[in-house]
């Protein structure tokens, strides 16, 4: 018994990693394009900070799930959380990294940034194609102080399957039973009206070129490109501007103690919350094979470092960092769920 263990250790010796300080470890991840700018920023900083280099490929959430299911990468990334049974069947655990918001952008001559006020009811009617002109009485009544032009409403949406669409249609399904039973929520849905384009840049192009256009884009994209956004009335009945204070209020109001961190952050009931905010997730195998154990450990070390040092970078890029309590819950979940082939936890406080 003893001899066998010794032999095993001797055989494994050439494959053991050299200590981290002597060598740069590389982890590979693939998935959602929404958090890519942040992961790239974290990746270049973490090389110095924790000695882990990140190779992240933004192939889309679906691609990320496919890749991590096939175990060709160390971690996958998805904007939408996986359901408990999907995680179990693929032997994965998930945890959120940051949150992002989806905002509405419009092209209405003479209407200033964040001036237009929209209610859930009017938003649904616009996206169902029932409000077809901007001087519709319902919109005029909400916006007495601005002059709404007599322009046709042109809806723009993402034609490529995307997490942004999932977040936006989840919101629409939440606020309208008709939308829930009609187009529903998903990474791509059957849009009743409008034009599709590829990526945030495609949707913003539709909006920029079409007077009377409205479309949903990621907040980070809207901020960087100085797009004209709108207020939305939240569940508490207050008109909210898409600004960091409102996003942070959502992150603070979310309940992170739910199983698999699949916190419901859409249309929360706080007074100041922005209603369309959602976390983005990392998928990690719970049973990495022997040669992937290091990748798994380094992935957790990478995100542990990012949770401790990366919030500033996240805010600069218009992402919303998670509260401290959520970070601790995620570390506890790593220790509890991710096991090496011998059944021992890969994440220990010492590993960080």
């Amino acid at each position, binding site marked *: 018994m003893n001899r066998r263990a010794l032999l095993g250790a001797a055989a494994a010796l050439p494959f053991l990693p050299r200590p981290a300080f002597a060598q740069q470890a590389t982890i590979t991840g693939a998935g959602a394009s929404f958090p890519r700018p942040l992961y790239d920023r974290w990746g270049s900083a973490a090389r110095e900070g924790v000695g882990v280099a990140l190779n992240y490929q933004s*192939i889309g959430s679906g691609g990320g799930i496919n890749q991590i299911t096939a175990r060709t990468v160390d971690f996958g990334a998805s904007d939408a959380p996986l359901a408990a049974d999907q995680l179990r069947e693929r032997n994965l655990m998930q945890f959120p990294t940051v949150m992002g918001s989806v905002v509405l952008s419009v092209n209405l001559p003479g209407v200033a940034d964040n001036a237009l006020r929209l209610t859930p009811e009017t938003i649904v009617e616009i996206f169902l194609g029932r409000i077809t002109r901007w001087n519709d009485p319902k919109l005029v009544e909400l916006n007495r102080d601005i002059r709404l032009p007599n322009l046709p409403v042109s809806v723009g949406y993402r*034609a490529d*399957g995307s997490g942004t669409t999932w977040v936006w249609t989840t919101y629409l399904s939440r606020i309208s039973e008709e939308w829930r039973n009609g*187009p529903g*929520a998903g*990474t791509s849905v059957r849009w009743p009206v409008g034009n*599709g384009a590829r990526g945030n840049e495609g949707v913003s192009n539709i909006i920029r070129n079409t*007077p009377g256009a409205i479309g949903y884009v990621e907040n980070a994209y809207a901020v960087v490109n100085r797009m004209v956004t709108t207020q939305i009335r939240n569940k508490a009945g207050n008109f909210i501007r898409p600004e960091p204070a409102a996003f942070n209020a959502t992150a603070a109001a979310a309940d992170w103690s739910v199983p698999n961190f699949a916190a419901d952050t859409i249309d929360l009931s706080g007074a100041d919350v922005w209603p369309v905010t959602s976390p983005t997730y990392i998928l990690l195998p719970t049973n990495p094979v022997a040669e992937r154990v290091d990748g798994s450990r380094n992935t957790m070390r990478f995100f542990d470092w990012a949770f401790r040092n990366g919030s500033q970078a996240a805010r600069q890029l218009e992402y919303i960092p998670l509260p401290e309590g959520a970070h601790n819950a995620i570390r506890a979940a790593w220790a509890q769920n991710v096991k090496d082939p011998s059944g021992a936890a890969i994440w220990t406080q010492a590993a960080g």
Partner: protein
Amino acid sequence: MGERRRIGETGDLVFAGLCRGAGGFVLLLLGAIIVTLFIGGLPAFRAFGVEFVWGLNWDPVEGREEFGAGVAIFGTLVSSILAIIFAVPVAFGIAVFLTELAPPWLRRPVGTAIELLAAIPSIIYGMWGLFVIVPFIQYNIQLAFGEQLAALPLVGFLFQSNNFAGTSLFAASLVLGIMILPFIAATMRDVFSQVPPVYKESAYGLGATRWEVMRGVVIPYTRISVAGGIMLGLGRALGETMAVTFVIGNANRIATSLFDPTNTIASVIAMEFPESLSGSLQQSALLAIGFLLFVISFLVLATSRWLLRPRLK
């Protein structure tokens, strides 16, 4: 001598074997692609039956997936046929100009320019379509006289649309038309220049005008090859992906007007494949419409071969 001959024979055998292998490889590859697409699409064909081919619903939402290729097939065929309608008259004009009218010193530069059009990557056409053609349609056609066009008797419905984003069936057809123009023009020029001069000179000798010579001699002599060239262009238009995706509006709805957005098979695949989960019904449906596109392209090429058949005898 005999020794050398034997070596020559062995060389011949090896050469023949290699050539047969290369020919067989192409067939094998083609067959493998068809079979792979069909097997990948089988779950979708099973789930929706023949109706998959003309079904108009494309609903990838989890839990109530329903897929039909009708809209994508409609968009693919209509945009390609419209592209042919736009491209053929212009290509004909170019070919006549180059073979009959242009002074010899101009033929080469214009001919080269046409061929260069074919070398432009399709993504460039897509960007140009999005930034030039789409706003042009929006402002100079739709907003300028969309209402007057929609009021026309009989054909008015073709222009009646609530879509003002400019990305539309019309934009896609226009961009496709320009993309396939060089293929059709080059084929036409080549076949027109192969008409024996004695035929044309006889017609001119009888007092025929240039147009009469084109209509009575050149076109009848070359019409089958011309049809072959048009079919080649159609084949290219059917499978075009990036340029169309940029400008067609990507809406899974039947376009009832030229200015409505719709979708094509290639564009649906390009948009939705990266996000589809492996093994899902959505991925299977995407492979299935890929298979249908293959079948359509095959039928178009087979038709062009069939048109060329009298020539091949």
